[in-house]
């Protein structure tokens, strides 16, 4: 390990490596989606794979999400293990029936007799002025609907291990990568998007949160790019003598409620940070989880920072106003400690 973990990769390359290693290992794994072939995926999740595996296993598709995601379902129930890419999660509306009513329910309807082993991977998130149809995270929407696991890595190590777990899982797994954690050359540089990744295949368990930073004064529970924001905030808070624990949920389904409770029982204070729309989403679920399981431990009402229930605006000043960031988290943490 020690030697191999010295190798550093971006999250994007870690994802592509995970897919390649699983395709090497298992002939039945293949990928399909828009521009995943010669282009390598708009966000590079299949970079280099067409040359390695050829067009039969790295299939470019028409702009027919209902068609090719539905086809992935049929392939999955007939002996293959497809990885379908929905280019942006914002596009779910053109194919949601296949995702939530079909992919996610066949196993249940069949009383466990038919498995749907597939991965649906998709890009999420904003912060680069791509406006309201290309900047959403929407993971709360999927986590609300039963039958699919929802995985949202924040760093290269988890990205590779969770992708391998997702491909090997016999259930449909929605694998969401935030564009901001990928370490793409054409996005604003993010040092936290590059990190040690073992060369050999390994798995990270689906449904387990991780303590990204230990702390004692409050818990900042969050996911994906907001983990980076929270870690930045935690450094600022430390300078002010506040010890923040940062909990990276890593998955929304299954949600690691025990990890949330454990941390809150330790810190007695909870701030939930999310880049999804605030209402009826992740922040409410995590806070409710804490209230249900650790009510008596809470020294102050849990608080939340999320998109204030508006579409993502285009103009930089407007978008930055609605996105969570380290400063908002610092302010939120301090407010929490003074209530």
């Amino acid at each position: 390990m020690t030697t191999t973990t010295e190798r550093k990769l971006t999250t994007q390359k870690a994802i592509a490596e995970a897919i390649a290693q699983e395709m090497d290992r298992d002939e039945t794994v293949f990928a399909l989606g828009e521009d995943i072939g010669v282009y390598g995926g708009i966000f590079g999740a299949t970079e280099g794979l067409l040359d390695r595996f050829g067009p039969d296993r790295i299939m470019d598709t028409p702009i027919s999400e209902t068609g090719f995601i539905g086809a992935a379902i049929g392939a999955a129930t007939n002996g293959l293990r497809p990885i379908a890419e929905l280019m942006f999660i914002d596009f779910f509306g053109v194919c949601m029936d296949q995702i939530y009513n079909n992919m996610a329910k066949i196993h249940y309807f069949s009383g466990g007799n038919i498995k749907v082993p597939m991965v649906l991977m998709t890009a999420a998130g904003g912060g680069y002025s791509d406006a309201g149809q290309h900047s959403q995270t929407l993971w709360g929407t999927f986590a609300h609907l039963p039958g699919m696991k929802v995985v949202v890595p924040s760093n290269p190590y988890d990205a590779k291990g969770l992708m391998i777990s997702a491909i090997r899982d016999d259930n449909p797994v929605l694998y969401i990568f935030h564009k901001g954690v990928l370490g793409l050359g054409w996005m604003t540089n993010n040092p936290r998007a590059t990190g040690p990744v073992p060369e050999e295949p390994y798995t990270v368990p689906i449904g387990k949160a991780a303590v990204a930073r230990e702390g004692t004064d409050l818990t900042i529970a969050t996911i994906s790019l907001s983990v980076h924001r929270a870690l930045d905030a935690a450094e600022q808070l430390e300078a002010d003598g506040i010890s923040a624990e940062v909990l990276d949920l890593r998955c929304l389904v299954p949600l690691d409620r025990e990890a949330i409770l454990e941390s809150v029982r330790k810190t007695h204070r909870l701030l939930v940070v999310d880049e999804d729309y605030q209402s009826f989403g992740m922040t409410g679920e995590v806070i409710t989880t804490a209230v249900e399981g650790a009510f008596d431990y809470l020294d102050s009402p849990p608080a939340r920072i999320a998109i204030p229930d508006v579409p993502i605006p285009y103009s930089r000043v407007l978008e930055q106003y609605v996105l969570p960031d380290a400063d908002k988290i610092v302010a939120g943490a301090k407010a929490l400690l003074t209530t």
Partner: protein
Amino acid sequence: MEIPKDHLVDMYSTMVKIRYFEERLREIYFADKLPAFDIAAGEVPGEMHLAAGQEPVAVGTMPHLKAGDAITATHRPHHVAIAQGLDLKRMAAEIFGKDTGLGHGKGGHMHLFSAEPNFGCSGIIAEGMPVAVGAALAFKKLGKDNVAISFFGEGAANQGAFHESLNLAALWNLPVVFICEDNAYAISVPKEASTAVPDNSDRASAYGMPGVLVPENDPVAVYEVVREAIARARAGDGPSLIEVKTDRLWGHFEGDADAYRTDEFKDSMGDRDALVVFGDRLLEEGVLTAADREGITERMHNEVDEAIDFARNSPDPAPEDALLHVFA
């Protein structure tokens, strides 16, 4: 017609089985819902979409299927499921919501799933069409000479999934046969109020695939056209689109007042009931004797009665089993 006798007899026998199965279901469905119809009441609650009259499209396809061939059917799935040979007991048990059902009672009559025979259906219009494309893609990748058959109603032909599925199947030259069951109505909406062209088979040209119309609700006519299409698909020559004009003898679902169809129309359907017409024809043509026909009827009825008794006598699932099977 130069169709093997056993195929003719199988098709007829299966039609008898399907019709009797649905008659029994219908009777049981209403038995404890009347006089004040309550959709939630009785041994078989919920929506019930029966296919009486549409047997030809199912049985005309059946003789050309082999083990492993995949079928995706619709919200009106019984005729196709029975024709493909699903375990009638477990199918009935599912419809009765029993633990012995195909899905342990979780799916019900719109959500029948079976690995072998390879069958699935759905309550969402056209939802099964891309799934059939995917099954065919798997067959091609795995080097199997199986085919996938996607059944859908004429109303489904105006859903976007129809377009995407046919384009994909043609683009990738997959072994899929798309079979449109044109019973002229989508619930209360007649085809001319939903579809800009008279025949969906003509839409095949938009995908460069063959499109064939079967103008009569006749198992033999279906048999011949589907034989072609399946042979083509198995040979690796790609998908086809077939539209069969058929009759939905009863309401859209049981309990439907069916006021949107005239009595003349309904009577005319009754007069041309494909089950009667085909049976009589087999007699005339000497394929069956009156005794054969009675024998078939008796055997088929017994099989159905046994399946329904099995379902009735099976235990309910344990309530808390509702929490099982979300994930494997």
